[in-house]
């Protein structure tokens, strides 16, 4: 058995805070930050990183190609 774990990197300066990645994430990993970037946008970031499964949904819907997605398979020990 293996479990999939993911993580994303959001290019904060590229992000326009459209929220599309936030609603596309099935695991509620992302949210818009209360801080803004140099352009004044509330950028997206991981608030629940432990939930990320690396499904790429967020990256695929991002109009500004700000998101890079990483994924690994983690072996799970049998009980």
């Amino acid at each position, binding site marked *: 058995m293996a479990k999939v774990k993911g993580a994303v990197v959001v290019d904060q300066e590229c992000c326009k805070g459209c929220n599309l990645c936030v609603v596309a994430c099935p695991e509620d990993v992302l949210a818009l930050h209360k801080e803004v970037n140099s352009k004044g946008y509330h950028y997206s970031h991981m608030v629940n990183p432990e939930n990320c499964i690396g499904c790429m949904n967020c990256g*695929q819907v991002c109009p*500004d190609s700000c998101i*890079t997605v990483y994924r690994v398979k983690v072996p799970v020990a049998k009980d």
Partner: protein
Amino acid sequence: MAELQIQDIIKPENKVYGKSKIMTDTPLHYCYGCSHGVVHKLVAEVIEELDIQEETVGVAPVGCSVMMYNYLDIDWMEAAHGRAPAVATGYKRVNPKKYVFSYQGDGDLAAIGTAETMHAVNRGENIVMIFINNAIYGMTGGQMAPTTMIGQATSTSPYGRNVDINGYPLKITELVAHLPGAAYVTRQSVHTPANVRKCKKAIKKAFENSKKNIGTSFIEVVSTCNSGWKIDPVAANKWMEENMFPFYPLGDIKDGQRDSDEKYSVQKLKK
């Protein structure tokens, strides 16, 4: 095993998705959440996957995507408003081995450029035509387009589109699907991850078709213009689903190749 740290996951060898190499470093000038950005990226991903960067020529329109040539690192031409399929025709005919695509908004393709659209498809030009239907003239301040929905308020239809005065929204995609020159005609969207993936497949098929010389491939992407519609991007997606999809249903309309000319050839006139 100790709990996996984020730093252990974020490593080059674990990367599964990122910005296409075909996209340049120029930040997109579009409003936040604009569908244009998603479709640009899909075209870039397809060009990268098919490894045709050196063989691809895009024809950019007039409209919000007028500066598309800044964003994809391929050869480009810029066409006057509505004329992208005519320019693409010329380019493809003198460079038949190239992959040539046009990219246009609804004002460009379905208003001022209607004649170029119909005739390019009717001639069965071996080009890819990408059509961003956001039901509005985005660039010029949200005026009514031929594709604007009945009742939709725009800056030139502040009380909503009225059929008695403005006629019906134009289903130009259904019209071109009837033309014998069309090979592949489909209507897609990019508002959910699943739809983004489907749309990418359609764009890829269209590019592959142009290698096979089987006629015109035409992809409408039902899109949002949150600035023109004056709602936020998430609400715009919902509005599109509820109001545009019933009139502009998603899916393939034609999938094959242009009609054989033998089907229609007449016998020579006898003297």
